[in-house]
């Protein structure tokens, strides 16, 4: 890329970051996350609409389809900002999964435009559970225009207007749409450490609209999951960035033995290690998103997504745990915001796989690439 083009892109990204940050700060910052946690674990509909107006949901969608056409790098910037204020809106799930599936499978459907406008919020139910945990096969079926089966780990369901469901139809994969309050739909809400809801969806002949079927569904799902994994990594980068800032400020002001605790070398060196991990995670996740923007091959994109999530999880774990320790006893209380960051990191790490899981995937992808060469 030429220097001028590089600067142009960097300027656009900077402006995007600034506008999303301002919007989320004005909406109430991290304090809003606490308020909603103590209410119902949903989100603010007006904020969803404002985010939509700022173009957030269309970051990756091409301009001719009503988006910003700025790619995953831009969506990553947005995700970082969401992470910084632990915003409760399901931004990454919408951009990565729901919009990721719709724009690839049925770009003409009115749902896409509504979701981009923020008037419709879609949850996506694609995973299933078996006795060991995450299942590798689909047992939920689409038959006679209805869905039957159980879906697990459905994020962003609390105030969703509709739910996208990946199911099996005529021996192949399919994408169908259901109403959350429709007949035959029962939602088992599981409260997460950050107050949000991860749902189990029990479907018994629930009327559904078929949106797409066949191998294209699997391809679109794989691509959408890679995107969402990498964007969750970016959200975690935002979470740890802010947790680190809060902690550094605290060590500069909290005094013991008549000195700020940040003047003790043992604290300083631990703070530096957190800082290095944070810088490394930022560079790595942004690099991965850039590479994903430039690549088509699913295996390559999946490998970069795993690389990003692995680094972001390791970093967020280290930083949010150290943050509590460096705050001392007050860090273990619910009075300060720092605990909200720990709790969000727990949820985002577990969702779509933690660092150990993704390092395994990454190595498998790397070895497959080496073997193919």
């Amino acid at each position, binding site marked *: 890329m030429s*220097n001028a083009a590089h600067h142009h892109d960097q300027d656009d990204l900077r402006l995007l970051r600034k506008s999303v940050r301002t919007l989320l700060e004005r909406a109430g910052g991290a304090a809003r996350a606490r308020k909603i946690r103590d209410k119902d674990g949903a989100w603010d509909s007006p904020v969803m609409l404002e985010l939509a107006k700022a173009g957030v949901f269309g970051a990756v969608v091409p301009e001719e389809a009503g988006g910003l056409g700025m790619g995953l790098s831009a969506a990553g910037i947005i995700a970082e900002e969401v992470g910084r204020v632990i915003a409760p809106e399901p931004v990454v799930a919408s951009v990565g999964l729901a919009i990721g599936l719709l724009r690839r499978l049925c770009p003409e459907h009115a749902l896409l435009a509504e979701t981009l406008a923020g008037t419709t919020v879609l949850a996506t139910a694609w995973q299933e559970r078996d006795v060991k945990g995450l299942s590798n096969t689909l047992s939920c079926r689409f038959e006679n225009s209805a869905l039957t089966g159980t879906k697990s780990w459905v994020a962003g369901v609390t105030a969703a207007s509709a739910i996208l469901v990946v199911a099996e139809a005529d021996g192949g994969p399919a994408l169908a749409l259901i109403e959350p309050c429709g007949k035959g739909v029962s939602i088992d809400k599981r409260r997460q450490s950050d107050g949000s809801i991860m749902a189990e969806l029990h479907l018994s002949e629930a009327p559904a609209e078929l949106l797409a079927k066949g191998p294209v569904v699997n391809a679109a799902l794989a691509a959408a999951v890679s995107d969402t994994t990498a964007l969750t990594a970016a959200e975690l980068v935002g979470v740890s960035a802010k947790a680190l800032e809060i902690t*550094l400020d605290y*060590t*500069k002001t909290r005094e013991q033995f008549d*000195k*700020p605790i*940040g*003047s*003790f*070398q043992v*604290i*300083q*060196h631990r*703070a*530096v*290690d957190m*800082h*290095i991990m944070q*810088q*490394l*995670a930022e*560079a*790595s996740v*942004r*690099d991965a998103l850039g590479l994903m923007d430039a690549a088509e091959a699913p295996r390559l994109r999946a490998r970069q997504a795993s*690389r990003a999530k*692995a*680094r972001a999880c390791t970093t967020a774990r280290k930083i949010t745990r150290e943050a509590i320790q460096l705050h001392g006893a007050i860090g273990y209380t619910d009075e300060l915001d720092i605990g909200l960051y720990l709790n969000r990191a727990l949820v985002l790490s577990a969702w779509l796989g933690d660092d*150990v899981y993704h*390092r*395994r995937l*990454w*190595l498998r992808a*790397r*070895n497959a690439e080496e073997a193919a060469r």
Partner: protein
Amino acid sequence: MIDYNEMSDADFRRKVRQFFETEYPEKLRHLSHRPKFAEIEDWHRKLHAKGWVAPAWPSEYGGMGLNAAKLLIFYEEQQRWGVVRGRDMGVQMVGPLIIRFGTDAQKAHWLPRILSCEDIWCQGYSEPGAGSDLANLRTNAVIDGEEFVINGQKIWTTMAHDSTHIFMLARTDPKAPTKQQGISFILVPMDQPGVKVRTIATLAGETEFCEVFFDDARTPCENLVGELNKGWTMAKSLLGFERVFIGAPNLAQNALGQLESYARGAGRFDDPAFCERFAEVALDVEDHAALYARFADQLKRGEPLGPDVSMLKIWVTETFQKITELMIEAAGPDGGTLGPLQVGNAAVDVLAAFYKARPTTIYGGSNEIQRNILSKAVLRLPG
């Protein structure tokens, strides 16, 4: 005179690569020890004839005059092909200092001799009581007529036993108000009765390091570079470009390659516990490269590097050590065996890699010192 900066990056890279691949002697590739000059003399002659001894020096002084972007490419290709750094203290350290602070006479005298390796330089900074706390140095230089008379001791002087000259920091004003003041930068010929060199055997069984003793050693006053008592700030000003190289990914990348060939040969990838740890260090290396690229881009845009560049050194050296620990672990009962271990088609010298990794967290400002720098200059922590 070719202006390399006018070439496209790709063309320049091709040119450099081709030269190394056709001209560099196979037996000197990826040397695990620091060679004496005699061992690499033929290669140095070729490089000198080509005018490529000093990539960073301005062309008016016989350098290649490369800008930051081209310089990075040059070094990347050098590392990729396993080209020895050579006896480059003159080119890397003294030369730039003379170019920046020296007199015309000093430039005319010393620079050509550095390029031709007629003079081979070593660096006299550290002392027994001045390691991380370098400003605590005590070796003193007293003016006696037209000469400095030097007394004291330097240590960890790399390759002093194969050098003709030493550039050193010496105390010239013991009464200066702070210990950083009152230090001067002087050039001293080593072939004189007042200079004695003793090699130090390292844990790796090598003798790259030396002690240098000064007992009424002499050097003409005209060998002072820059102003008297201003050596500290001058020496520090040199550390610009160097700081990104000390954090470059190559050492860890090479070690990872060795670990991988060993592990493949020994079937270690069948062990899920090994796989997990391998993936961890491999990603530590890959992600470091992304951070390194950020600083490299900064240099390419012509922006100066800030103190945050210390991060690179900390991360890459500690990763390097983690990799070599994993190599020892993978070697199992062979983990204590010196020399190359044969596995499958590969031979990997596990302990050589391990020993090579140890001093990296100590030299160039120990990682603890780097953390102090980051804590104060970047995180702005108090005290």
